[in-house]
């Protein structure tokens, strides 16, 4: 397997007005990486993730996906991101949201085949077969004809994962996928994500589940003030953090562990 990274991020900046949220991020994401991104709220971790499939337009810096730097440079102006180019990248970079964002007027199956049919132009029968496979993977094959309003939060999130996986992305982004869930539903979603990670899929995961990061991720990133403060294998970052900010963050998270 080539060692070329799937995603290369160089000096990524993002500002909302005067608010400079991301202040220069560099990262290489390699094939098979499962990277957990930790940090307090306001650290920029979600904004960072959302820049990677251009839900947010980067203010500065470069993102290179599969060897191709996204967007075009214009003299004296910010980098331009044409819609046609972004729709291509987004098919390869799947995203799962905190709030699921399922399409409420479509069935579970309808949600999963939408991208295959409309974006990739797949014929109906093939799209349905593919969708059923993805739903089976997340354990919801029998819910194919239900509407999202009939599902639990955990089931909705699993459908959202199937919807993203259906397009066969080479990178998955999870933006706090369990933060909107009741505690008893967190496990089923984490299990599905773990299953995907075990298949060797490349993923970035913004999470507050430090334990999950420890067991599933091969790299952990700690962010604060819009930059990566510390990065390394979970054993190192979570058990033996060097940065005082990381130490303080982890101390807060482990406060009530027993």
């Amino acid at each position, binding site marked *: 397997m080539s060692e070329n990274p799937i995603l290369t991020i160089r000096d990524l900046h993002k500002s909302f007005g005067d608010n400079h949220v991301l202040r220069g991020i560099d990262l290489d994401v390699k094939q098979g990486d499962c990277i957990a991104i930790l940090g307090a709220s306001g650290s920029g971790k979600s904004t960072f993730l959302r820049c990677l499939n251009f839900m947010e337009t980067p203010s500065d810096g470069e993102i290179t996906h599969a060897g191709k730097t996204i967007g075009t440079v214009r003299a004296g102006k910010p980098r331009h991101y044409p819609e046609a180019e972004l729709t291509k990248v987004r098919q390869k970079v799947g995203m799962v949201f905190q709030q699921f964002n399922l399409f409420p007027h479509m069935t579970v199956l309808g949600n999963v085949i939408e991208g295959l049919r409309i974006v990739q132009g797949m014929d109906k029968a093939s799209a349905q077969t593919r969708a059923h496979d993805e739903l089976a993977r997340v354990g919801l094959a029998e819910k194919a004809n239900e509407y999202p309003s009939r599902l639990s939060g955990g089931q909705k999130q699993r459908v959202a994962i199937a919807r*993203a996986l259906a397009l066969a992305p080479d990178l998955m982004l999870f933006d706090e996928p369990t933060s909107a869930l009741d505690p008893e539903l967190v496990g089923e979603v984490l299990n599905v994500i773990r299953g995907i990670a075990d298949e060797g899929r490349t993923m970035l995961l913004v999470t507050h589940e430090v334990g999950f990061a420890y067991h599933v991720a091969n790299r952990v990133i700690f962010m604060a003030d819009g930059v990566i403060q510390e990065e390394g294998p979970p054993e190192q970052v979570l058990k033996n953090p060097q940065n005082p900010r990381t130490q303080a963050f982890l101390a807060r998270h482990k406060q009530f562990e027993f």
Partner: protein
Amino acid sequence: MDYVWDFGSVWEYRAALWTGLINTVRIFAICFVTGLSLGLMMGLARYSVRRWLRWPAACFIEFFRNTPVLVQIFWFYFAFPILAPFEISALMAAALGITLNSAAFSAEIFRGGIQSIDPGQWEAGRAIGMRHREIMARIILPQAVRRMLPALTNRGIEIFKMTTLASAIAYADVLHQARLIASVNYNPIEAYTVVAIAFFVILYPIVRATYVLERRMAKGD
């Protein structure tokens, strides 16, 4: 009051009234379809990512929302032919005025409905690689139209009543026909009462249906 009601004289002219009613329905159908279609386009334009579409739509909406329909109808019927080298029929002039006014109002309904949809729906569409236009057509509008149905029905009722303005330029709608009957028979009370009842009988069931629809929608959400 010892007025003797005489609906018999109106009944004699029922054929004329019927013709008027058909004409009323005809202009309504034209205005409803074109008005809402144009309104949808204007609403979309006003919500477009392209600035050169946004501001003409805003101008259109504000202009036609803030001028009386009757003035617009008169303008198209009496002023337009002086400026342009062709005649314009009463139907055409009235339909133009009512359509443009309805488009302006329904554009606001469409815009409001579209903006009421959770931005997460846009993001979900973008995240699977859909284009702006595809998300609008397949994700946003189907949900928005469901929410807008009561408002659009109200607009339809308004348009139906507005069609009587066409009688002011002698379009042979039901009100115009009633005025003819009244002037021939000197029975304005009966003639106009029949017109009022006709409108009520047509519109009231539709209004009731809207209430039912609204309640069902509230449950569905």
